[in-house]
């Protein structure tokens, strides 16, 4: 009893205060604030806020909070890094070198910042895919999805702009390739490239612009949009899955859910610090390695094995799979166009998924999410050159690598389908099937990536159209 009382003392602001309907506000600080700003209705709202409980797993609800925790770590460590970082041709690389070698715990701050960035992208990606699979985007939560989608793009922007700041060789070429992609934007491409780089090529002017973006523009945008995102979630609450049996009473957000959140944050902090201390330069796999290396030199050639961060590997590999020319356009242009279409579809899913909007299961969209995962995994594995070991000329190495990656992805795909049909009772696998077919055609049979994609997409369209006509006919006869 005693312990229960003291446990609640810290949360006394959540206790029932006198009624808001003109009754006497409470005493003390809360009463003082309440008489001026009328916060009781807000507290009342928070007290009644509930997280849906039921037959569904609650784990997915924590991923947004975890992502926010890593963002807070980024802000704190970022501000600490700012106190030593000096942007400039002769100082950027040198100041990071000084920070990691001379400043007490400088290595740790940088390591935590880098690890937290990667973990934030992992938790954000899981958060986004779980939202997608659970159809939490369905009305009335469309704008929560769109704001989350924008936060995802900004986070990728953080990763990309932060990468250049140490001004090392890897950063220089990654930025050269990454910024060059905007050249493919119709009409505005050349102007955008100039504005992004602050010149024709990547120079120290690019670093100044990226620095401004990384520490001012993107954080302001992020904080603005995440405020909206959180406001939407607070107003509407979390979405239960479509088919879940929701219990009549959920879990109280304050304090039950919030305390669980905090507990998880502590676990994340432990994980983060452990990784940062024992692997201060990352796990050492390509795309997840922040060894400072040598200073950027505009007159040095790119070197073998140069790779972007792991979360851009799929895009890097896709660029490689496009031929020099396609449909009268340059390969990279068509590639950018395809990526823009995919990202555009991803952004407007809440409006495309008509069945979920009517609170009915939409197996095609679940399958689309799983197919997207397979698409990304296969490209990422190939970007990593998994299996490209041993002797052989470059072409045979590429083919061998594609074969190994294909086997891995196909195995993952089969396990995925088995799991989905057993656990979620999914029965619709057309898009996953198309993704697996493309992987098999490209990786195992050696057909070009784009042709394999076209064959699989064509087959998927035929199957979908056929099943549409076959299911619509009995309905028609049924109604007449």
């Amino acid at each position: 009893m005693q312990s229960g009382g003291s446990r609640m003392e810290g949360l006394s602001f959540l206790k029932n205060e006198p009624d808001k309907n003109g009754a006497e506000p409470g005493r003390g600080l809360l009463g003082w604030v309440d008489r001026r700003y009328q916060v009781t209705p807000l507290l009342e709202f928070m007290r009644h806020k509930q997280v849906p409980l039921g037959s569904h797993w609650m784990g997915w609800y924590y991923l947004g909070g975890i992502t926010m925790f890593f963002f807070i770590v980024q802000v704190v460590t970022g501000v600490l890094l700012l106190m030593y970082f000096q942007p400039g041709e002769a100082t950027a690389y040198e100041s990071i070198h000084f920070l990691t070698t001379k400043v007490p715990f400088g290595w740790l701050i940088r390591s935590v910042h880098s690890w937290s960035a990667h973990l934030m992208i992992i938790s954000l990606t899981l958060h986004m895919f779980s939202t997608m699979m659970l159809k939490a985007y369905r009305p009335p939560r469309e704008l929560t999805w769109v704001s989350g989608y924008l936060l995802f793009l900004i986070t990728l922007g953080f990763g990309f702009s932060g990468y250049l700041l140490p001004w090392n060789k890897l950063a220089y070429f990654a930025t050269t390739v990454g910024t060059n992609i905007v050249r493919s934007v119709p009409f505005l491409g050349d102007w955008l490239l100039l504005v992004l780089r602050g010149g024709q090529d990547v120079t120290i002017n690019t670093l100044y612009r990226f620095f401004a973006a990384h520490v001012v523009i993107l954080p302001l945008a992020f904080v603005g949009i995440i405020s909206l995102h959180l406001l939407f979630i607070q107003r509407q609450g979390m979405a239960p899955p479509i088919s879940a049996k929701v219990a009549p009473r959920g879990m109280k957000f304050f304090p039950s859910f919030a305390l669980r959140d905090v507990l998880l944050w502590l676990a994340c902090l432990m994980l983060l610090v452990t990784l940062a201390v024992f692997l201060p330069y990352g796990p050492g796999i390509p795309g997840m390695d922040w060894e400072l290396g040598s200073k950027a030199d505009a007159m040095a050639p790119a070197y073998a094995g140069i790779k972007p961060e792991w979360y851009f590997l799929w895009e890097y590999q896709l660029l490689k799979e496009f031929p020099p020319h396609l449909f009268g356009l340059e390969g990279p242009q068509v590639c950018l166009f395809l990526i823009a279409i995919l990202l555009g579809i991803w952004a407007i899913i809440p409006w495309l998924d008509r069945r979920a909007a009517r609170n009915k299961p939409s197996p095609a969209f679940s399958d689309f999410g799983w197919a997207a995962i397979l698409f990304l995994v296969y490209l990422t594995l190939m970007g990593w050159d998994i299996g490209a070991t041993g002797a052989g000329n470059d072409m045979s190495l590429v083919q061998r690598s594609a074969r190994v990656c294909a086997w891995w992805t196909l195995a993952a795909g089969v396990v995925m389908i088995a799991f989905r049909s057993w656990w979620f009772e999914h029965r619709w696998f057309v898009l996953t099937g198309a993704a697996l077919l493309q992987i098999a055609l490209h990786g195992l049979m050696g057909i070009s990536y784009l042709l394999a994609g076209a064959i699989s997409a064509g087959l998927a369209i035929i199957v979908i159209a056929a099943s549409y006509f076959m299911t619509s006919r009995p309905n028609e006869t049924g109604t007449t």
Partner: protein
Amino acid sequence: MQEQVHTVSNSTTSRRHFIDLLLGASILGWLASIAYPVIRYLKPLPQTGATGPTRLTREETAKLEQDQFIIVPVSGQRVIVLQSQDQKLLAFSAKCTHEGCTVTYLPGQSVIWCPCHDGRYDLSGRVLSGPPPKPLPEYAVRRQPDGGIVISEERA
């Protein structure tokens, strides 16, 4: 009477409509007057610096002899100067036509190679394999009587 009211209200509506239009146009003009300087500010000035032919320094020539290639700035552009197996001097833009990485020379294979996305060019700048959409532009390179090497912007 009723008709009069009608005309009055009609003329007020069109007058209001006209004023709304003016207001809208002036807001647009006001926004443009803010946006224009910002856009101009963001667009960098054209690069200034040395233009015209570049003569390799003694160190650069030594590096060329040693590595069989060197990358130097010519009129603000990265240019790769290389020595082929038959000791011929060649110069190309060092910017891969795919995504702009800096290319390198593989003397053993007589190939100019971009490690970023595995683009390959032959020693006349033509694409051999990989994703580059265009050949590498060639630069003129001359060995002067005193042994100095000069690269000039004019395409050979």
